[in-house]
């Protein structure tokens, strides 16, 4: 069985301008969405606050839950349904009057509904100090992983490949973040983990193409780089599509059956895999070509 016929010769490099146009548009939309939403929709990992996941014995309306909180004066709580008879309660604070919010929530529900009527399934509380730490660490981790990749590719290949690879990574990261922002999904620790995974995955995909370019370039020294790149993308196309397909399959399993806790995580990975695959074909290698052209025209200018 074959998805991609062996003799395929699609003119990817010729469609370079169109692809760059699409990519730049997607990135602009992503950034615009983040700005329009007034920054990322940080989850409590980064913004600080309390999250309590509750499961009720029988259907309980958010109104009932909100009423239970009235005596303790919790005003700005967000109550979201979260599966069968489950809700997630979020609040931006961690403590009030020397008592932590999660205990207050527990006590007020116990008073209003009785101890057996519900179960506290999960509590997450992140103080502002920790939130700040984590935000900083997350940013550093992403940027350093870019730099790590840059160094690795520059070492294993050449610097021009590294440029293409890294720009593709920045492209993938920005668009995935943009997709999360457009859908107003929450940005928390697991999303950062997903982003780092996408970075690893996307570069993995890209390197397979680079590897082929390197091999082909050695074989036919006289062939123009554009031709070599286009051939290499075509030759690895079947594998690129297959790999993305299998990973996409397992991620679908994770997305639909992995449970609510890692729902957004799988979603980010799904977006990332699609974008990462696109960028390996249409962004990374063409940039190597553009970089090469820029450099040669520059060196000509010097002469």
């Amino acid at each position: 069985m074959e998805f991609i016929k062996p003799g395929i010769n699609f003119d990817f490099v010729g469609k370079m301008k169109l692809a760059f146009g699409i990519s730049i548009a997607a990135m602009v939309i992503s950034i615009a969405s983040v700005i329009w939403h007034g920054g990322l929709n940080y989850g409590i990992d980064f913004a600080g606050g309390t999250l309590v996941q509750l499961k009720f014995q029988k259907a309980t309306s958010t109104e009932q839950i909100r009423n239970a909180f009235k005596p303790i004066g919790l005003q700005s709580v967000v109550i979201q349904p979260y599966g069968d008879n489950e809700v997630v309660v979020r609040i931006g604070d961690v403590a009030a009057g020397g008592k932590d919010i999660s205990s207050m929530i527990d006590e007020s529900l116990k008073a209003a509904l009785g101890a057996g009527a519900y179960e506290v399934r999960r509590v997450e509380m992140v103080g502002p100090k920790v939130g700040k730490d984590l935000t900083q660490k997350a940013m550093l981790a992403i940027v350093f992983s870019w730099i790590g990749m840059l160094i690795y590719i520059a070492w294993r290949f050449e610097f021009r490949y590294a440029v293409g690879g890294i720009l593709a990574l920045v492209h993938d990261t920005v668009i995935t973040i943009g997709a999360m922002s457009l859908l107003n999904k929450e940005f928390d620790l697991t999303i950062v983990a997903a982003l780092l995974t996408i970075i690893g995955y996307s570069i993995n995909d890209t390197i397979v193409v680079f590897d082929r370019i390197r091999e082909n370039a050695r074989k036919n020294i006289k062939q123009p780089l554009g031709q070599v790149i286009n051939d290499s993308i075509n030759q690895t196309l079947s594998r690129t599509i297959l790999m993305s397909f299998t990973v996409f399959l397992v991620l679908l399993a994770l997305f639909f059956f992995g449970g609510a806790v890692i729902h957004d995580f799988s979603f980010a990975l799904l977006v990332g895999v699609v974008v990462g695959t696109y960028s390996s074909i249409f962004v990374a290698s063409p940039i190597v070509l553009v970089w090469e052209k820029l450099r040669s025209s520059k060196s000509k200018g010097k002469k």
Partner: protein
Amino acid sequence: MLKSIKLRALLALIVCLAGLFFLIPSLTSDLPDVWKKYLPADKIRLGLDLQGGMHLVLEVRADKAVETTTERIANDMRETLMDKKIRFRNIERTTANLIVLELPDSASRTAFEKLLKDNYPELDIVSSQITEGRESLSLKIKDKRAADIKKMAVEQSLETIRNRVDQFGITEPEIITQGDDRIIVQLPGVKDAARAKNLIGKTALLEFKLVDEENSVDGALRGIVPDGAMIAYGTTIERDTGRRVRVPYLLKSKTLLAGGSLENAQVKISDRFGEPYVALKFNAQGAKDFDRITAENVKKRLAIVLDGVVHSAPVIQERISGGDAQITGSFAMEEAKDLAIVLRAGALPAPVNILEERTVGPSLGQDSIDQGIRSVFLGGLLVALFMMIYYKLSGMVANIAFILNLIIILGTLAAFKATLTLPGIAALVLIIGMAVDANVLIYERVREELRLGKTPRAAIDAGYAKAFVTILDSNLTTLIAALFLFGFGTGPIKGFAVTLSIGIIISMFTAIFVTRIIFDFFIWKRKIQSISI
């Protein structure tokens, strides 16, 4: 050729068996006893997000310990100065943690200098100013000593919290310091999160103070707090309504006796009302002090203050010798038990703040495990079916490799006592998708070579050889990303990074090494003319 195949097959077999060896205890718990004797006892360690439990990050407010020490030195100095009849004025601790005082004449200055040198070597003079023969001094704890106090405070807090947790009865808690002033507490399987937090976070500073009965509470509440007195609150339950009400007390600031003098604290049930109370037993010195205090203050009220809250303020009916006292109040049984625990374990040297909490209830953990296993199976099934359809028999070979891959990954997790978290399971699912990639790379290469008209054997040789570098390069980059993830992540995310890294390395082994053995074997044995690929 055969020898090489046999050797490689043996190696692969050993690795697989080793994987199984470590994995079996995690799969089932009712093994025959004979097996149990030889198999390792450890199951795969589950993260708190899977087995349920509580993860806390505490911050020890070590600066408070320095404050308390400064306060104590100031009080001590006041008494010493009075004992030695050295004249002074206004000794007090400022908010900036300085001890300031005034010495009115040169005689007192000389005497104080000597006292400072002999009794208080840990103090530095920050500034001294002489105006009209009167000297204003400000003193401070030496920086090095302050740093020691802070360090001690964190160490002692760790010890105290460990004691409390042990007495609370939680198996395999993990309590470690992080950075300068943070303590991480992990309590697997804890059921009542609020109770555990209360137990850990309570400072539990027990103090006995006299109630100031010469001055009125109302006057103090209006803002005229007499020298050497303070306002503290307690709660009582109104008879008529049953509501809890806050009651103000005016107490003498001086602490007569503190929790440090306790030898034991236990919950008892009172005979009259069947209510629980906490029985205190003082140590030898404490008993002596308590005897003296009660003797000197008969018919006065002695307040029992815990963390600044007045628990009760009974009237001392008579001198109490023997070193027994009790804290009564309207306790629930659990409250009384926890109070006894914290009193036995001792007070924290400084208050702690909870910076971060992540608690997962046992039922959610189990749900996550179930969902995780379901997605691993489903993901695996989808990929296996796909490989079979797309690559036929060769796809089956890849599937064998990926089943071995899963076994060895899980076995490795168990062997190295790595923690499997929910994101870790996600990594496992992801690995299933990525592990076949190596085979896809190889097979696509083999197909290319076959199209060039090579024999099966030559095509497989070339396919493996050419794909190898690519697989290595591409997997190493994913590994680099996983390492950054490990450095950045906390708990569950670290689990993701660990599982992903182990998975990548092992999948390279199974996808390249193991599949190659199978291909080589068939080519050698059957002298096949074509490959089902």
